[in-house]
């Protein structure tokens, strides 16, 4: 699950670090400096060949381990690689989908969603094997056995229609966030408005965090019929603006070469103006 990033504090609040320092820190003896550098380089989207190569190498890091056997540096490297948009990272990220650390698998799936490379389809589908019946919580841990939300969202973003039969059953998964992700993916894979409408209906739910997630889902799929529902939802304006921006950009995608703005685009912008 990617939290929508409606940070109320402006982003320029990271401790000062130069690009050169951050790159050097990726190879530092001090593991905490490496961990921080990996995050920093993604955050500030330092898309340089050496950075990408170092981060890909960090996906196989063995030095940085948590007590439970997790791989903190791999997690940050996987997250950063999604933001840098370099497809050379795809094979390494696909390999991470088999990592023993849940959070590495989750970060890799999220980044593969951003990179939208078809070659990840089979490995992502693998993580849905066993279907809803197998998609249960890990005892004593705050997550399910696989990062289902991220996997479903990635399959939707990639346009993996061959995964439809695996995605559809997750519409009935007991965890609402997983249901949201399944609806989002189903809409992207089929274009059927029933799935978009289902997300809109879920906005009534009495859970602020989930409403924020649904707004980000609607923004991500650019579901323009949800514009009014987004503007009227009980969520902070920052989140509504980001969701409506998603709708607006989706309108623009179709019309990039046409002069003027569609009625839908104008409608969305009028709603955005009211939220300033």
């Amino acid at each position, binding site marked *: 699950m990617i939290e929508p990033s409606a940070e*109320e*504090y402006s*982003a320029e609040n990271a401790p000062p670090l130069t690009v050169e320092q951050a790159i050097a820190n990726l190879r530092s003896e001090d593991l905490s400096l490496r961990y921080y550098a990996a995050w920093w380089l993604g955050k500030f989207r330092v898309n340089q060949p050496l950075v990408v190569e170092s981060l890909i190498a960090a996906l196989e890091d063995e030095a940085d381990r948590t007590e439970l056997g997790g791989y903190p540096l791999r997690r940050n490297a996987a997250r950063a690689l999604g933001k840098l948009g370099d497809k050379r990272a795809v094979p390494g990220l696909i390999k991470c989908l088999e990592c023993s650390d849940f959070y590495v698998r989750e970060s890799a799936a999220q980044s593969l969603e951003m990179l939208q490379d078809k070659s990840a389809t089979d490995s992502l589908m693998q993580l849905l094997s066993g279907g809803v019946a197998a998609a249960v919580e890990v005892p004593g841990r705050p997550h399910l056995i696989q990062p289902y939300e991220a996997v479903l969202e990635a399959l939707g973003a990639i346009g993996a229609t061959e995964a439809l039969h695996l995605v559809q059953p997750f519409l009935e998964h007991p965890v609402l966030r997983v249901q949201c992700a399944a609806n989002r993916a189903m809409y992207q894979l089929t274009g059927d408005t029933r799935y978009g409408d289902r997300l809109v209906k879920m906005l009534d739910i009495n859970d602020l965090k989930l409403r924020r997630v649904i707004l980000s889902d609607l923004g991500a799929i650019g579901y323009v019929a949800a514009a009014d529902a987004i503007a009227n939802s009980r969520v902070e304006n*920052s989140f509504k603006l980001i969701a409506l*921006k998603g709708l607006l950009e989706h309108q623009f995608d179709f019309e990039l070469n046409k002069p003027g703005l569609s009625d839908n685009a104008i409608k969305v912008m009028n709603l*955005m*103006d009211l939220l*300033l």
Partner: protein
Amino acid sequence: MNELIRAVTEADSPDRMLAAVQNLALAKDVAAIPTLIAVFGYNNPAAAVVAVSGLIELGESSVPQLLLQIDDYNYGARAYSIRTLAAIADPRALQLLLSAAATDFAPSVRRAAAKGLGKLHWDKLDGEESSKAQKQALATLLSISHDSDWSIRYAAIVGLQALTKIPDLQQSIQTRLEEMFATDKEKAVRARVQMAQM
């Protein structure tokens, strides 16, 4: 009135708070102003929205206290104050809107101020003062139209669009909008420029 005010201060649930604020706003009494402003700080968005419309309805008479009671320590509350001042559009808010748009750390506050800077009631100032105020608003909006946060640039365009009603400012606004349309990396921002140019 005292009773309506007390109902707000003593409300012990979000729903009771909302009902009490609704009743107080309906009274349309200037005595309600400080209490309505205080509601911005109660972390009850539904009640805050009602308080905003109550204060907007009271109009200019709530401006001095809105300016005085601005909450420097709670950006949520501050955003509601700025939105209210922007909607009332009394030019006495100019200095506050200028500094909020340019220097507040909270994007929600800055966006509300940027929008407000475009549509103050300039005619309430005399000629020379009015043109000086308009130029200050323009300078601030042009400056924040370069911000790194897309939503601030978006709000700056909304402010600039409103300022195009002033003939003296049109040329520099058009120039900046054309530049943004050509260079901004966010499609949403470019789309808003296009709408401003229609």
